C-alpha cells in the first residue's frame, strides 16, 4: 500500500518538481496542496487534481491532513502564513499522527554573510534581523519544538536552487543582460547552489530517514563551484554573456556595504515618519489636529530659527545626499551574495540521509540551458528579433 504524502505549497518551484518527480512512483500517493490558482500553472498542465488549503484556516488544514502519513512543507507567504500558518500545520500534523514532517528551510538562517563557521550546521545562526533568514529561523524553531513534542521532523537547508525552471538562474541572466551585474574579484568566490532535482532526492530520503529529531541539514551540490564558473555556464544563453565586468570586492563593500538587509531603528523611523510633511498634511485635514499643529509650529517658531533647525536635525537627521554615479543601478543584493564566501558542507546529509547529488554542476547547467532553449523556440532567428532589438 502506498504512503499518503501531502505536499504543502506544491505550486512553487520545489513543490512542482517534487510532484512531477513522484507522480509515477507507486511508493507515494501524492496530494498536492496549493493556496491560490495564480501560480499553479506548471502543476495544472499535468491534468491531475489539485487541492486547496489555507494554512491560516485550521478546519481547512484538518481536512487536508486527515489520513495523511507524510507531509512536506514547501509553503511560502507573508509573515503570518510563515509563522502562524506553520504553527497551525505543525499542530494539525501532530494531532493527526503524521509520521514524517519534512520542512524546507534555508541557509539564510546562518546570516548574510553567513557565520564563518557555517560550513557545518552546528555553527551559530545569526540571520540579519527582520530578514527572510530570521523568518526561516523562527520557522525552524517551531519545527524543532514540534519534533521534541513528538512529531518526527527533518529540516532541510538548501542554498539558491538551480536546474530546469530555476528563476534564480533566470534572474542572474537578466541582471547580466541589463548590465546590472558585476563579478567581485573576477568571480573567485564560492557559490552555494543545489539542483532542484537533487533537492527532491534529499526530500525523499528525508521522508525515509530514521533520524527525525528536527536537526538542520545542508542540501547543496558537492562540487567547488565559483561565481565565474556559474556565469560561464550561463554565457551561451546571454547576449555578450562572456563579457561580464568585474570589480574588486573591497570597492563594492565600500560603496554598498557588506551585509544584507540592515535592521532599521524602528522607533526613530516612526518618529521621523510622524513629523514628515505627508503625515502632517494628512492630519491637518482634521480641525483639532490642524489646531495642535499650528500651536506647535508657533511654539517652535518662538524658539528661534537655530533651535528649530536643531530640533529638525535631531528628529529627522541631516539631509543625506547620495553619491550618484553612472553605474549606480546595480543588482546589489544579488552581487552581494558573492561575499558569502563559505561553502556549506553536505557531510551531515551524507551521514544521516545517505544523500549524494546525482547531477554534476555541468550536467545541471546543461539541462537548464536545454530547458531554456526549448522554451525560447531554440533561440531561432525570430526569437533573436525579440532579444536583439
Amino acid at each position, binding site marked *: 500500500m502506498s504512503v499518503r504524502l501531502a505536499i504543502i505549497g506544491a505550486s512553487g518551484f520545489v513543490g512542482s518538481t517534487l510532484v512531477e518527480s*513522484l507522480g509515477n512512483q507507486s511508493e507515494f500517493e501524492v496530494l498536492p496542496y496549493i493556496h491560490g490558482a495564480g501560480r499553479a*500553472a506548471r*502543476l495544472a498542465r499535468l491534468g491531475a487534481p489539485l487541492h486547496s488549503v489555507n494554512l491560516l484556516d485550521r478546519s481547512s488544514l484538518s481536512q487536508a491532513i486527515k489520513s495523511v502519513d507524510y507531509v512536506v512543507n514547501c509553503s511560502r507567504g507573508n509573515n503570518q502564513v510563515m509563522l502562524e500558518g506553520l504553527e497551525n500545520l505543525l499542530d494539525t500534523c501532530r494531532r493527526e499522527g503524521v509520521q514524517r514532517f519534512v520542512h524546507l528551510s534555508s541557509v539564510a538562517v546562518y546570516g548574510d554573510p553567513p557565520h564563518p563557521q557555517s560550513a557545518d550546521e552546528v555553527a551559530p545562526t545569526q540571520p540579519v534581523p527582520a530578514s527572510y533568514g530570521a523568518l526561516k529561523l523562527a520557522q525552524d524553531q517551531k519545527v524543532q519544538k514540534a519534533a521534541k513534542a513528538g512529531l518526527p521532523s527533518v529540516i532541510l537547508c538548501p542554498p539558491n536552487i538551480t536546474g530546469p525552471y530555476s528563476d534564480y538562474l533566470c534572474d542572474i541572466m537578466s541582471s547580466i543582460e541589463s548590465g546590472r551585474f558585476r563579478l567581485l574579484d573576477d568571480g573567485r568566490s564560492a557559490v552555494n547552489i543545489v539542483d532542484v532535482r537533487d533537492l527532491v532526492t534529499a526530500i525523499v530520503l528525508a521522508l525515509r530517514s530514521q533520524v527525525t529529531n528536527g536537526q538542520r541539514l545542508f542540501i547543496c551540490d558537492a562540487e567547488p563551484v565559483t561565481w565565474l564558473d556559474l556565469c560561464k555556464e550561463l554565457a551561451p544563453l546571454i547576449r555578450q554573456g562572456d563579457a561580464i565586468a568585474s570589480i574588486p570586492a573591497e570597492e563594492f563593500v565600500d560603496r554598498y556595504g557588506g551585509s544584507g538587509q540592515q535592521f532599521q531603528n524602528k522607533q526613530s523611523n516612526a518618529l521621523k515618519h510622524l513629523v514628515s510633511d505627508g503625515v502632517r498634511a494628512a492630519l491637518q485635514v482634521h480641525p483639532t489636529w490642524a489646531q495642535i499643529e499650528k500651536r506647535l509650529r508657533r511654539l517652535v517658531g518662538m524658539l528661534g530659527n537655530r533651535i528649530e533647525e536643531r530640533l529638525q536635525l535631531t528628529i529627522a537627521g541631516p539631509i543625506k545626499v547620495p553619491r550618484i554615479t553612472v553605474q549606480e543601478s546595480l543588482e546589489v543584493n544579488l552581487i552581494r551574495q558573492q561575499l558569502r564566501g563559505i561553502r556549506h558542507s553536505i557531510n551531515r546529509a551524507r551521514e544521516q540521509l545517505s544523500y549524494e547529488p546525482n547531477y554534476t554542476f555541468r550536467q545541471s547547467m546543461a539541462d537548464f540551458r536545454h530547458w531554456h532553449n526549448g522554451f525560447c*523556440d531554440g533561440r531561432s532567428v525570430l526569437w533573436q528579433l525579440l532579444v536583439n532589438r
Partner: protein
Amino acid sequence: MNNNADFQLIIVGAGAITQAAHLPAALASPLVNVVAIVDTDLVRARRICAVYGADIPVSPSIDAVSTSFDGAIVATPNHLHAPMTKTLLERGVPVLVEKPMAVEESEAEEIVAIAAARGLIVSVGYHTRHSGACRVLKHCVASGRFGETLRIAHQDGSIGGWSPVSAYNLNMKTAGGGVLTSTGTHFIDRLIWFWGMPDQIQYSDDSRGGPESHCILRFSYRRKQRALEGLAIFSKVMGLAENTIIETEEGLLIMQRDSAEDILFRPRSDVRLSYRIVLQGIAPDRRSLYQRQLEDFVNACRGGEQPCVNAETGLQSVRLLNKLYATRQALIQPESASTAEVT
C-alpha cells in the same frame, strides 16, 4: 448607483476580474448604472460591492434580477461564457462577454447566429484593443508608412499570474485551455485584426492533459515575394518581458505593453535612435481600458453600430484558438526537467 445614467447594466460573475476591472469601470462610467451583480456566491458578490462602497443589489441568477436592464457583462469562468451569453441574447439582452467568447467553435457560431437574427449587440472583451499602443501599431502597419512588414515576434510571460477566485483556470473543462487561452488570445485577436487568419500555423505546448503553462506559436502569411513569418511565446512558468516587435523595411516597430498608449520606432538606418509614436489629435484618455471597452459597448447598443470587437470577430479568435489546439505538438522538454530520478 449612478441614477442619472440611462443604461441599466447587470454584471454576471463576481470573480476577480469583476472586482478588479469590470465593476470599477462601470462605477467610473457616467453612461451606466449597475442594477445587479449576479453570482451564485451571494456573499462574494456583496463583498465586492462593499469594497467599492457600492449599494448594488445582488442576485443568485439572471431570473432573480428584479429590475429591467439594457445590457449585461458576462465575466464568468470560460466554459460558461457561451451558455450565459446565449441565454441573455435569447431574452433580447445585448452582451459584453469576456474573452474568449466561447470554448467551442460551434457555441461561438450559435452566438453569432442568434445576435444576427435578433439584431443584438455582442461585444467581446479584448480590452487591449482600446489602448493607444494597439491602435497606433495597427495604424502604422496598415498605412505602410514604414514599408512592408517583414517579420513579427511577440512574447509575454510571467511566473504565475492572474488568480481567479474559482480556480477555473486550473481545469481544462472550465478554462478551455491554458496560457494560450488566457494570455495569448489577446495576441491572436490582434493578429487577425492586423493581417487576417494566418495561412500556416505550427503550435506546441507543454500540456500533459491539463491547461498548458507554456506555448510557442509559429505562423506565416503567403506573400508574392516572400512569406511574412512570425513567432509568439506565452508562458506562466518563465518571465518574458511583454513585447511585440514588428520588423518593417524601415526598421522596428516595438510595442512594449499592449495596455500602453504609445509605441517605439527604431529606424534601420540608425539603431541608436528610438522614436516614440502616438496618434495625433487624440486627447489623453484617463479612462481605464475596461471603461473604454464598456462605453464602446454601450455606444454600440445605443447607436446600433458595431462595437470594436463584435461577435463575428470573437468567432474568428475562437476558430484560430481551436485550430491551434487541434494541431498541437508536444513542446520538446528535457526529460530531466520533469523526471528527477528518485531512487
